[in-house]
């Protein structure tokens, strides 16, 4: 029986149990004449939870465990020398066995019956092909019985699973139903289930973090075993060399500082563009604009967040960068008579500005929502004292909305740090260390992507450094976030 049907049955059992519980719950009230602790709907949900949760958990476990067990079993049954003889690895041999299994299952009943353990594989292959299953030519006679065995195992396992799961569902429903009585705190139990679900949801963030750290840890360790951490963290030159090209095995220099400086600098310029524009736009939409303007302007601005960054990148490259360059040439021409550009076509300024445009909606939309939800009584209080709207906004509403706005800003800053394409096209990839915003710099993220997708040997420090950069960036932003949390805590204002 297919998994979806099993799930359907479980759902049905739960639904029936839930319905019965619902009726029982209503009955209770009539019988006892006193109000039960929980409403019938909670009795229903209670039974539903009992029917669904254990059985579906079991189903999931089974679905994961059964193929693994099957695989172990089949692999153990491999004739050892035969595998080696055929020049296959265990993995490949198992892959073929699996696809033979698939082939067998896709045959119609009567044709399948003709194949048994002794059928030579050559005879079976054309059949499989006829039914659209291409099987490797490296398949061997001994694989067929294993495939049959594997198929049997999975069939049996499936039936067993079906029965057990459905029993679990029914049992759960029954148990839940029997528990129903006036004093049963069904609501609390159901809410506990909800609560656990919520906890599980929030733990995904933790698991993601763990996953990220682990998926980069080994490579980073590998990197640090080849390049000294001191040089990496405090080096001021970024100049990895090709390990092969005549550099005498030199790997070049991996100084983090120029990248870090570039990241912070470009991010800061981007924030300097996005925050004022976004915040003022949000304030205008929330406090001044009529509803029509707002309902048009807001989604329009949100489109800015969805334009692929490559578009921004080319916009910077083709339009903004040359514009700044020519502008600077004009300015210096007017001032000094020497028409040479002091802004490079690729510069921190260009990247920051263009990225800032992309980030506008992150500030504007989120802040707008938060400002809108500040209760009107606060506005009235301030306006009633004779404050102008702008004074009200600046002195009452923004402070009240501050925690939310800070969250929005943090999110914006985070995006600024994580952006690649715009920086590549607008500020370039040269890792300079400068304080001149008119020159090119680059960011950590750019280098992560670049080192990871280049032509460099993948075992070399040049590639591995991407992982080290990833972890480092992770830790740096972590510190910044801890600091931000501390600041927000300090200035929190709670209304009402």
């Amino acid at each position, binding site marked *: 029986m297919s998994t979806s049907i099993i799930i359907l049955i479980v759902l049905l059992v739960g639904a029936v149990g839930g319905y019965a519980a619902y009726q029982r719950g209503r009955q209770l009230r009539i019988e006892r004449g006193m109000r039960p602790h929980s409403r019938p709907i909670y009795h229903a949900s209670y039974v539903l939870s009992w029917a669904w949760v254990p059985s579906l958990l079991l189903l999931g476990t089974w679905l994961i465990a059964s193929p693994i067990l099957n695989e172990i079993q089949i692999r153990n049954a491999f004739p050892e020398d035969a595998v080696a003889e055929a020049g296959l690895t265990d993995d490949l041999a198992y892959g073929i066995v699996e696809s033979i299994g698939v082939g067998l299952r896709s045959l119609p009943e009567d044709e399948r019956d003709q194949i048994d353990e002794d059928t030579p594989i050559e005879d079976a292959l054309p059949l499989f092909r006829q039914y659209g299953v291409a099987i490797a030519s490296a398949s061997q006679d001994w694989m067929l019985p294993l495939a049959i065995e594997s198929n049997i195992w999975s069939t049996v396992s499936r039936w067993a699973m079906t029965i057990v799961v459905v029993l679990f569902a029914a049992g759960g429903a029954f148990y839940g139903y029997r528990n129903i009585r006036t004093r049963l705190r069904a609501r609390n139990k159901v809410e506990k289930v909800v609560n656990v679900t919520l906890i599980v949801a929030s733990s995904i963030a933790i698991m993601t973090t763990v996953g*990220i750290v682990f998926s980069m840890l080994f490579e980073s360790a590998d990197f640090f075993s080849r390049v000294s951490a001191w040089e990496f963290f405090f080096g001021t030159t970024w100049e990895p060399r090709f390990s092969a090209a005549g550099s005498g095995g030199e790997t070049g220099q991996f100084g983090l500082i120029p990248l870090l400086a570039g990241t912070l600098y470009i991010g800061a310029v981007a924030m300097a563009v996005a925050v004022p524009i976004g915040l003022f736009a949000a304030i205008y939409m929330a406090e001044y604009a009529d509803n029509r303007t707002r309902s048009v302007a807001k989604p329009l601005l949100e489109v800015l967040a969805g334009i692929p960054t490559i578009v921004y990148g080319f916009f910077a490259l083709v339009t903004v960068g040359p514009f700044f360059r020519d502008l600077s040439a004009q300015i210096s021409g007017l001032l000094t008579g020497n028409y040479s550009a002091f802004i490079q076509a690729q510069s921190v300024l260009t990247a920051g500005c263009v990225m800032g445009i992309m980030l506008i909606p992150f500030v504007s939309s989120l802040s707008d*929502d938060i400002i809108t939800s500040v209760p009107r009584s606060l506005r009235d209080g301030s306006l009633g004292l004779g404050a102008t709207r702008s004074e009200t906004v600046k002195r009452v509403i923004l402070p009240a909305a501050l925690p939310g706005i800070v969250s929005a800003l943090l999110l914006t800053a985070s995006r600024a740090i994580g952006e690649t394409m715009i920086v590549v096209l607008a500020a370039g990839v040269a890792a300079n260390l400068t304080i001149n915003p008119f020159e090119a710099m680059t960011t950590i993220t750019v280098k992560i992507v670049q080192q990871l997708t280049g032509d460099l040997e993948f075992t070399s420090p040049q590639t591995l450094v991407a992982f080290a950069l990833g972890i480092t960036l992770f830790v740096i932003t972590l510190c910044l976030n801890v600091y931000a949390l501390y600041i927000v805590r300090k200035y929190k204002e709670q209304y009402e």
Partner: protein
Amino acid sequence: MTDATANDISDRSEATRGRRDIGIKRRYAAERRFKAYGMIAIGLGIAFLFILLWSVVSKGYTAFWQTEIRVPITFSEEVIGTAEEGAANQSKLMMANYPQLARDGLIQLLEIDPENSEAVSAANGLVSQGVRMELRDMVLNDLQVIGTTEDVWLYASSDLDSALKGSYDLSVEESRRPISDLQLEFIERLEEMGALEQNFNWGLFTFGASSRAETAGVGVAIIGSAYMMLIVLALALPIGVAASIYLEEFAPKNRFTDLIEVNINNLAAVPSIVFGILGLAVFINWFGLPRSAALVGGLVLTLMTLPTIIIATRAALRAVPPSIRWAALGLGASKTQTVFQHVLPLAAPGILTGTIIGLAQALGETAPLLLIGMVAFVADYPETPLDAATALPVQIYMWANEAERAFQERTSGAIMILLGFLALMNLTAIFLRRRFERRW
């Protein structure tokens, strides 16, 4: 007392003199400035948007038209074999030399000497290499066409198409452009005959990836993106909202929840490609999910979008005044009921914003897909989320890197399609926001 007249009052308007100075002029100036800043900010934002849109649309609108040539095709039995043979042996039909049919048709149409190999290859360069598929499908659909002659609209080659659309500088010497003088002459002749037409380019929406611009489309990418967006929406929204509710409403305020909070904020700052690394390590290498699959892409984007949704949702939840919670709790609503029935609806606009921004970001993201094999040439339509697929931004990225001119307009065309998707999402959001927004 109400009989006091207005005159009475105006007589004493002197009293208004010598009023206290509360810096009204200055404050009003500040007010006007402030308001102007707001308008400027919105104006700037929208202006940027339109500049960007303009830069895309002006380059890309031509992608929605495709030149076709009407060629009389003789489905000659010599070339493709008889209908009976074809019915018996499909593979012969499949492998037949269909381009020759097109070539012969062109020779006939343009009245070229078949011996003049230069002219023949010039003529041949006018139609797409995709004719093989186009004609083969015709034959396979209906074996009866074999042996007949029919006028067929064939896709013009991308060089012809681009030349007609003016993307090539035709003033440069012949050897420096992909379209020769002879071909230009042919084009003129075809136009005179009315055998050249520009039609709406449905193929752009339906074709999969192709190395030939004229048969390249975002079909596979749209499917891939749609799968991924559905997965992201189905996972990230509920998980994100659930996590936010827990953290904001239920979680005890302690070190551990601080840790989660910082953690989530931090995840937002993780470069998207790192999520690709994670996806590769966890979903592909560990769970053994297939490469290039929309499912994996969706999962990776889900993880990437979660922080955005959580941060927005938490901010929205926090902004709901506590008196609403007290009111519900005081009536004997449980915490869960309070949150789900009162707080959440009031926070809905904020949640929606987070979702839209998160989805928009996910819809436009390429980098994380790079490592899980979705930046790929995929010609076949995916049937399930487990099949190989690409995504719209990926297709854009790949086309942007193509050398051929025809791909450049298609890049912009694909961006327009992506923005269309985005607009659709935003419209939904506007509609939902209207329903939820409430000031009190």
